[in-house]
């Protein structure tokens, strides 16, 4: 996508990244690399964010109490930090999902009317 202003499109995208990260953790605990890969695959590369900025984003969710993390260290192989959604995170996800649906529906109506 040709971008007239990268800041402008980045700002539009930003708000939804945290919600998507939380949604990806809804069913099972996952580690960072796995989350990043799934975010890329499921969004068809729409969230082309630098991977290094997704880790602080995950930790921001943790600071908010929406996820918790723990290290899993296999006998052999790569130790990984797993993130798991908390009860508070689940409620936040529900609230966020509802907000997101209203937001997109409202925005669509405005955009369509102005077409």
């Amino acid at each position: 996508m040709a971008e007239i202003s990268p800041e402008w499109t980045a700002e539009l995208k930003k708000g939804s990244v945290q919600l998507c990260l939380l949604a990806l953790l809804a069913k099972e605990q996952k580690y960072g690399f796995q989350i990043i890969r799934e975010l890329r695959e499921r969004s068809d590369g729409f969230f082309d964010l630098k991977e290094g900025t997704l880790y602080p984003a995950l930790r921001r969710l943790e600071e908010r109490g929406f996820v918790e993390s723990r290290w899993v260290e296999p006998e052999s192989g790569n130790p990984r930090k797993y993130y798991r959604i908390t009860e508070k995170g689940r409620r936040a996800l529900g609230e966020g999902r509802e907000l997101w649906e209203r937001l997109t529906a409202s925005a669509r109506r405005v955009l369509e009317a102005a077409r």
Partner: protein
Amino acid sequence: MTSVDAYVEQVRRGLTGMDAGVRKDIVRELRSHLVDSVGADGGNVNAAVASLGDPVVVARRYRELYGYGVAYRSVFAIVAGILGVFTVPVLVGAETYIFPFFLSAIFLIVVATFLIWVSVKAGNRAGLAASTAACIGRFAAFGIVFASQRAAPLITPDGLALFAFVSLLLLVIGWVPGRAKRVWRNRGAEL
């Protein structure tokens, strides 16, 4: 040194002053990510490192979240407290001024600059802690003078008002810049 080591080291350096445990955990997680990322990309280390993005930006994101650790914030407060002592112009001995007005004014400028720096760099709470320490330093200096009978006649109502005003000003200086920065940042919204 591999490019993984170089990258991780650059991030680690960007996290100076953070709580040691948090810092270690961040580095460990990035290393773990790189192992997976390199493995998934057929051993292309440079591509894995590149897709993490600028290490300075990554470190800054962590800094926005965690700020400075207790140890660094304590050092900031101690430095501010010591500097604060010398911002009181009433440290006099016998008849001669050991600590004249102009010198205390210089210290006042130094401490104000330092407080702004702490507030911007480490956040408004660290800034407020440091400015509170500076005020404690000022009160300590004042208390010593007050306790020594000889200096007592030198304390005037105007002087007291100035003392209180400057102390309050320092508290504001410690808090406002960090707060302003945070409000400004949030307009752009972090990830």
